[in-house]
C-alpha cells in the first residue's frame, strides 16, 4: 500500500455520510478529559499500603473500644473488618460481643503463687509456671504444645484467624500477640498474610489483582464510571468489576455470557477454526503469522486476500467483512433438512463472531511482541542506521503500536457485542456494523503500515531522511484517525447505539 492509496482510502471514508468522520478539536479535548478521568478512578495498592490501611482500622477500633491492638485485630476478623457494624453491636451489648468472640476481661483460671510447678494439659509434662503461656483465660500450656497447636492451625489455612484456647469449653481468643511470640518468623508471616487477605476480601472497594502471583490489590475509587478498566503495576490490565480482561465496549454480563458460550461451543469452534486456510487462488495452506488480516500468498502466487472472507484484497475497501451475512447461496446448494439448515446457520453465525473475537486476541498478542521488538531492537537500529534521528523522535512508532494493542482489545470485544445484538433491530445493527467496519478498516491499515513500512528503514544502509519523514506523518495520522474511530465506536456502543432510537 503506497501513499496514494492511503489518501484515497481516507477520501472513501470522509465522503461517507456517517457524520462521524470529521475529527475536530472538540473531540480531542473530550478525549483528554476522558482519559484523565480514567486515570483517577483507581489506585494500585502494594502489600505495605494495604497493611497500613489494615493497621489504621485496628488502631481506630483499639482506641474506640479501649481494647488492645491484638484484641481489636481478632474482633475485627470476626466482624469481617466492618468497623461500623462492630461499633454498633459493641456499644449495644458489649458483654454479648465479648462472649461471642472470646475477649475475656478477667482470667477464668487464677494464678496460684503456691503452684510454682504445673502440668501442661496437653503433653502432661511438669513445667515451671513462668515457662508456660496462656490466652486471657489463664489456661496455661507449655511453649512446645502451644507452638504445635498454633502451627497446625496456620498450616490448615485462614481458619487460624479464629483460633481459640485449646481448653474445651473455653473460647478465649488466641490473637496475634500470643501467636507472634510463639511461632517461627515464617509461620507468623503466613498468619499475617491470611490477616491481610481476610482484610482485602472483605473490602468492597479493594480487590486483589487476578494475575497469577501478583501481590498487588486495586482500590476502585469511584462508582460513577462506565469503565472498570484498570492496569495493575504488574502490567496486567483487566476489568476491576468482573476481573476478566478489559472488555470495553461490552458490559460484564455480556462477557460472562460470551465466555460461558465459548466454553460450551469452543471444542466445536476450535475444531473448525484450524490455524491455516488454503490460499483462495493456489490452494496452498497459509498460516497467519502476522497481526493484520491482509494476506499475501508467497511467490510465485502473490495473491492478496482477506484472511476472514478470503475475498481478493483489492475489493476489501469496498466490501468490509465485519458484518455477518448468512451464506444463502451455500445453504441453498446444500441438501439439508430445515432443522439442519437452521442449526448450520446458527453455528455459522456464532463462528463468524467467535473467529473474529479470537483472532483479534492473537493479533493483539503479536502486536505486543512487535511493540517489545520495536522497543528493544528497532529503535536502536534506526538510530544507528538513520543518523539524523533521535530516540525521542521515534516515540511515534511506540504510540502506534500501543494504539494497535488497545484497539485490538476493543475490536475483539465488539464482536461479542455484535453476537448479542438483537437481530430485529436492523437500524442499530446497521449503525453498529458501519462503525465497527470503519474502526476495523482503520486499524487494519494502521497495523499493516506499522508492520511493513518500517522495514525498509531498518534494512537500508543509506539515510532516507525525506521518505522517513513522510512515513512518520503517515503513521502519526493513521494512529490519530484509528484512535478517533475507536473512541466513537466505544462511545456509541456504550450508549446502546441510542442515536437511532426513535428514528
Amino acid at each position, binding site marked *: 500500500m503506497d501513499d496514494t492509496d492511503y489518501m484515497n482510502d481516507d477520501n472513501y471514508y470522509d465522503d461517507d455520510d456517517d457524520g462521524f468522520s470529521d475529527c475536530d478539536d472538540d473531540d480531542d479535548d473530550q478525549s483528554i478529559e476522558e482519559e484523565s478521568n480514567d486515570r483517577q478512578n483507581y489506585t494500585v495498592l502494594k502489600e505495605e499500603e494495604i497493611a497500613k490501611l489494615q493497621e489504621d482500622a485496628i488502631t481506630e477500633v483499639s482506641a474506640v473500644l479501649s481494647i488492645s491492638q491484638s484484641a481489636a485485630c481478632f474482633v475485627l476478623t470476626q466482624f469481617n473488618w466492618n468497623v461500623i457494624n462492630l461499633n454498633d453491636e459493641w456499644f449495644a451489648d458489649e458483654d454479648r460481643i465479648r462472649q461471642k468472640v472470646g475477649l475475656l476481661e478477667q482470667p477464668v483460671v487464677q494464678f496460684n503463687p503456691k503452684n510454682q510447678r504445673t502440668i501442661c494439659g496437653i503433653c502432661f509434662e511438669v513445667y515451671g509456671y513462668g515457662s508456660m503461656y496462656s490466652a486471657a483465660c489463664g489456661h496455661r500450656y507449655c511453649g512446645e504444645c502451644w507452638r504445635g*497447636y498454633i502451627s497446625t492451625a496456620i498450616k490448615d489455612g485462614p481458619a487460624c484467624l479464629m483460633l481459640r484456647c485449646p481448653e474445651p469449653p473455653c473460647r478465649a481468643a488466641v490473637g496475634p500477640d500470643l501467636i507472634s511470640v510463639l511461632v517461627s518468623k515464617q509461620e507468623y508471616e503466613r498468619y499475617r498474610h491470611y490477616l491481610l487477605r481476610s482484610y482485602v476480601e472483605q473490602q468492597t472497594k479493594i480487590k486483589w489483582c487476578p494475575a497469577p502471583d501478583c501481590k498487588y490489590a486495586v482500590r476502585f475509587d469511584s462508582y460513577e464510571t462506565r469503565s472498570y478498566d484498570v492496569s495493575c503495576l504488574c502490567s496486567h490490565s483487566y476489568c476491576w468489576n468482573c476481573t476478566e480482561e478489559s472488555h470495553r465496549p461490552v458490559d460484564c454480563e455480556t462477557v460472562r455470557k460470551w465466555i460461558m458460550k465459548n466454553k460450551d461451543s469452543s471444542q466445536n469452534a476450535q475444531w473448525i477454526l484450524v490455524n491455516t486456510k488454503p490460499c483462495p487462488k493456489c490452494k496452498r495452506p497459509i498460516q497467519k503469522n502476522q497481526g493484520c488480516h491482509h494476506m499475501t500468498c508467497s511467490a510465485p502466487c502473490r495473491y492478496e486476500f482477506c484472511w476472514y472472507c478470503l475475498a481478493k484484497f483489492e475489493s476489501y475497501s469496498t466490501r468490509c467483512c465485519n458484518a455477518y451475512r448468512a451464506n444463502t447461496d451455500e445453504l441453498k446448494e446444500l441438501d439439508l433438512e430445515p432443522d439442519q439448515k437452521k442449526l448450520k446457520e446458527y453455528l455459522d453465525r456464532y463462528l463468524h463472531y467467535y473467529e473474529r473475537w479470537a483472532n483479534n486476541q492473537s493479533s493483539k498478542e503479536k502486536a505486543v511482541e512487535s511493540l517489545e521488538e520495536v522497543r528493544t531492537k528497532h529503535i536502536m537500529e534506526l538510530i544507528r542506521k538513520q543518523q539524523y534521528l533521535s530516540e525521542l523522535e521515534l516515540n511515534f512508532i511506540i504510540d502506534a503500536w500501543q494504539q494497535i494493542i488497545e484497539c485490538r482489545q476493543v475490536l475483539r470485544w465488539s464482536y461479542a457485542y455484535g453476537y448479542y445484538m438483537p437481530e430485529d433491530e436492523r437500524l442499530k445493527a446497521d449503525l453498529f456494523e458501519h462503525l465497527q467496519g470503519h474502526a476495523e478498516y482503520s486499524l487494519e491499515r494502521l497495523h499493516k503500515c506499522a508492520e511493513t513500512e518500517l522495514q525498509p528503514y531498518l534494512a537500508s544502509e543509506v539515510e532516507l531522511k525525506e521518505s522517513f519523514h513522510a512515513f512518520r506523518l503517515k503513521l502519526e495520522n493513521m494512529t490519530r484517525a484509528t484512535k478517533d474511530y475507536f473512541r466513537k465506536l466505544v462511545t456509541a456502543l456504550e450508549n446502546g447505539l441510542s442515536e437511532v432510537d426513535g428514528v
Partner: protein
Amino acid sequence: MAASQASLLLQKQLKDLCKNPVDGFSAGLVDENNIFEWSVTIIGPPDTLYEGGFFNAIMSFPSNYPNSPPTVKFTSELWHPNVYPDGRVCISILHPPGDDPNGYELASERWTPVHTVESIVLSIISMLSSPNDESPANVEAAKEWRDRRDDFKKKVGRCVRKSQEML
C-alpha cells in the same frame, strides 16, 4: 509436634491406662510395635440399648497427634445414628478445629490437643447413651431411632448379642 513427641505422649497415656484402668472400656495396642494403632473395647453403657455389648474399635493416631485428631472405627457391627455403616465414628470432637461448613457444630466442641484416649472414649460412650440425630452418619439408623424406635431397638439388640458371641 514431631512423631517422636506424639509417640512419647501416646506411650505415657498407655502406661497410665494400664496402671489406672477406667470403668467402661479397656485399651491396648493392635501391634506392640506400633504405638499409633490402638485397639479399644467399649462396654455398652448400663441403662442404654447397648447395655451388655462389648464393642471393639480401632483408634488410628496421626503422626502430628495431639494437634490432629485420631480416627475411630468400630470393628464390631454397631447400629447407631453417629456411626457410619463401615464403622467410622462421627462425633464433633474428632473433627479438626475451624469453622464447620455445615454449621452444626460449635468450634468449641471440636478437636483440641487436650483430648486423650480416655476423653475420646468417654465421648464415644456418651454418644452411645445419647445419639445426635441432627447430623447423622447413618441416615437410616437416625430415621429409625426417631420414628420407629422398636425396629431400632431390635437391630441394636442383635448387635449386642453378636458382640457377646464374638467374645
